């Protein structure tokens, strides 16, 4: 240990407050990536000792023992044992214990201590233990275990300097012992853990547990379900209601930038590329940032407060009927924001077939990338009026219907998959229910910032690139006078080829043109139409003044618009989702299967919608 920056791993049970402690120690100095070869998130960050020497911290996934039950738990074991490829074995461990749950958390601590690495114990969430009427003797635990024990309250940054000082001391003074083996079997381990916990408890005052009274309502078979539905309803309402003003502001900003470029740069190839390609395309997507942030805000709050596991409890019954488990609820709910983090969250599902099914249906949850498409088409084609005598808006109802179609579709697909390609015994559902906690604004803000950054980076790379490529394909070759540029261009000709295939389900040339670049990401369908529209309208004052929605209104029938909506309920048009599925399932088999079945469903759904609508005279 000379010169090099010591690496210290935070390890502990789920719900020990490990991530909060990590955030408190590192602040925003974090780097989130994946472990090479696996998609388990690697959270690393920097901190420093009191005298300024730097340390590298790594936050390991929570687990109950060194015998893993899921992918992320395996990473924890491998890192600690120094077997994780590309990762050096940590120089020291900080074992994070929930002070109010010592009997259980000490089991894993005993197992870790037997490894004989320099170790310090953080007796965390001491405030919650006090709320439960517990007074603890940290010294006593330290004496029993033979390592320093530092009381901490991560969310209030209490005990952090002491913790780091103890780690420093542990590394300096560490001398390998002859193994003080952990108890040999589970029962003996638990007995020892319970004995230490009992010795450490100075006093235990029974307090009235308001949390239990909350659970009596929240987990009530009927009342609990109503609360869950109400929360979901509030969440989706907020996504639309709150996002309006900031989205308008962003849209205005893009318009101003376009205007500035047009006014200050003489007309040339580059200016058109920037205004019609880059700004029109990327701008059309970036305006959805507020909606995505609001959705993630809700998900992060539900998770941090401890409610998410309650929701999983309530949904397990329904999900069990189609062969899934309540564990899948969290990934699927996240998929309403974006299927990529949703699919990544499935790694906590221990049963392989359960996990595979959850991955395969995750793209059916209406992700935020569909919002631009839905919002555009609904605003253009669905009248903005109430449904006779109810006070419910027709536009909102159609949107709700689209979400519902995705959910019902997902349940049916899961049911079918569990009886065919993902056949297996009904998966179990075993989970610890975390205690209720006040979410910490620092943790929430950090989570939101990380999500916003991922979205903006995507807009700046994949989406910017596809729009520019599309713009080039739409601009060349130059159409002779009197011919439509969009029709004449390379992209227009490719679209004409695709049009033959999608014509039976009511799709026109516009849609065929938008579908190809939208393979990169669904929202590109909107930016593609915006770019094509901008080129088409080039120089025509009247057309320039019209919004994209108004232009489409003039060109599409209602049946076509509805078929287009139905298509996007199912269509797997997202490179990131396909890529993450390949990584999560270790091969091309399942992503190919996913893309295939979803395109079939999309084609069928759009076709049925179109033919039905035409039959009702809406063609």
């Amino acid at each position, binding site marked *: 240990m000379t010169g090099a920056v010591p690496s210290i791993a935070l390890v502990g049970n789920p719900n020990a407050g490990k991530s909060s402690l990590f955030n408190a120690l590192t602040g925003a100095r974090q780097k989130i990536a994946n472990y090479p070869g696996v998609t388990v998130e690697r959270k690393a960050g920097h901190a420093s000792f009191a005298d300024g020497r730097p340390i590298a911290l790594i936050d390991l996934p929570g687990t109950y023992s060194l015998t893993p039950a899921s992918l992320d738990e395996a990473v924890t074991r491998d890192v600690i044992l120094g077997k994780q490829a590309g990762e050096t074995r940590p120089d020291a461990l900080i074992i994070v214990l929930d002070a109010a749950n010592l009997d259980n958390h000490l*089991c894993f601590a005993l197992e870790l201590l037997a490894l004989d690495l320099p170790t310090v114990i953080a007796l965390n969430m001491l405030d919650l233990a006090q709320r439960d009427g517990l007074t603890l003797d940290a010294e006593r635990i330290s004496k029993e275990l033979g390592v320093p024990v530092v009381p901490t309250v991560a969310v209030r940054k209490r005990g952090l300097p002491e913790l780091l000082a103890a780690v420093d001391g542990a590394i300096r003074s560490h001398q390998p012992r002859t193994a003080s083996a952990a108890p040999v079997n589970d*029962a003996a381990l638990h007995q020892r853990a319970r004995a230490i916990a009992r010795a450490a408890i100075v006093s235990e005052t029974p307090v009235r547990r308001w949390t239990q009274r909350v659970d009596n309502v929240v*987990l009530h078979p009927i009342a609990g379900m109503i609360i869950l539905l109400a929360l979901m309803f509030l969440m989706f309402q907020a996504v639309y209601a709150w996002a309006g003003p900031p989205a308008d502001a962003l849209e205005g900003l893009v318009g101003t930038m376009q205007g500035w470029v047009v006014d200050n740069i003489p007309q040339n190839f580059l200016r058109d590329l920037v205004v019609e390609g880059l700004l029109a395309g990327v701008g059309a997507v970036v305006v959805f940032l507020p909606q995505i942030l609001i959705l993630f805000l809700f998900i992060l709050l539900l998770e941090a407060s401890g409610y998410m596991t309650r929701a999983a409890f309530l949904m397990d019954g329904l999900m069990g009927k189609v062969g899934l488990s*309540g564990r899948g609820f969290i990934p699927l709910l996240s998929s309403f924001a974006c299927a990529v983090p949703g699919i990544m969250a499935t790694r906590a599902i221990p049963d392989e077939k359960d996990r595979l099914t959850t991955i395969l249906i995750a793209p059916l949850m209406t992700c935020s990338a569909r919002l631009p498409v839905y919002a555009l088409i609904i605003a253009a084609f669905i009248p903005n009026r109430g449904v006779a005598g109810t006070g419910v808006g027709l536009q909102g109802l159609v949107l709700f219907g689209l979400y519902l179609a995705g959910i019902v579709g997902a349940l049916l697909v899961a049911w079918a998959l569990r009886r065919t390609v993902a056949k297996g015994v009904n998966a179990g*559902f075993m989970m*610890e229910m975390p205690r209720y906690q006040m979410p910490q604004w620092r943790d929430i803000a950090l989570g939101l910032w990380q999500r916003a950054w991922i979205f903006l980076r995507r807009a700046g790379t994949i989406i910017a690139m596809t729009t520019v490529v599309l713009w080039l394909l739409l601009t060349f070759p130059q159409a002779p006078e009197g011919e439509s540029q969009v029709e004449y261009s390379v992209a227009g000709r490719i679209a004409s080829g695709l049009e033959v295939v999608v014509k039976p389900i009511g799709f026109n040339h516009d849609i065929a043109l938008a579908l190809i670049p939208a393979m990169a990401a669904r929202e590109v369908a909107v930016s593609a139409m915006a770019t094509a529209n901008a080129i088409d309208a080039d120089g025509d004052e009247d057309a320039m003044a019209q919004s994209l929605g108004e232009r489409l209104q003039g060109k599409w029938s209602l049946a076509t618009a509805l078929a287009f909506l139905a298509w996007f309920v199912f269509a797997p048009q997202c490179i990131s989702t396909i890529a993450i599925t390949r990584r999560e399932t270790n091969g091309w088999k399942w992503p190919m299967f996913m893309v295939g079945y979803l395109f079939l469903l999309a084609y069928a759904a759009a076709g049925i919608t179109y033919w039905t609508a035409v039959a009702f005279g809406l063609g």
Partner: protein
Amino acid sequence: MIALLENSLDRAPLGVAVRIARIDWNAMSEDEGRRLREFGLMEGCEITPLHRGSIFSRDPLALTIGRMKVIIRSSQAAAIAVEAVAA
């Protein structure tokens, strides 16, 4: 058939503390069994079943063990025999 003499946790009334008399480890997979033990569910320990299912189904079951609240499926609860805690 000893099951007749025992009450399984699956059928135990909610809100009443019981002691685990026996667990049929063969009725579940090795992973399930290990996770149960990691939660601390072992012969002799005291638990209180608290919440069961939703409008959709009788599954799952939430119970307290020590200061922890955990969720299991009724198929696992059916393999756990419980007895009354002496008052």
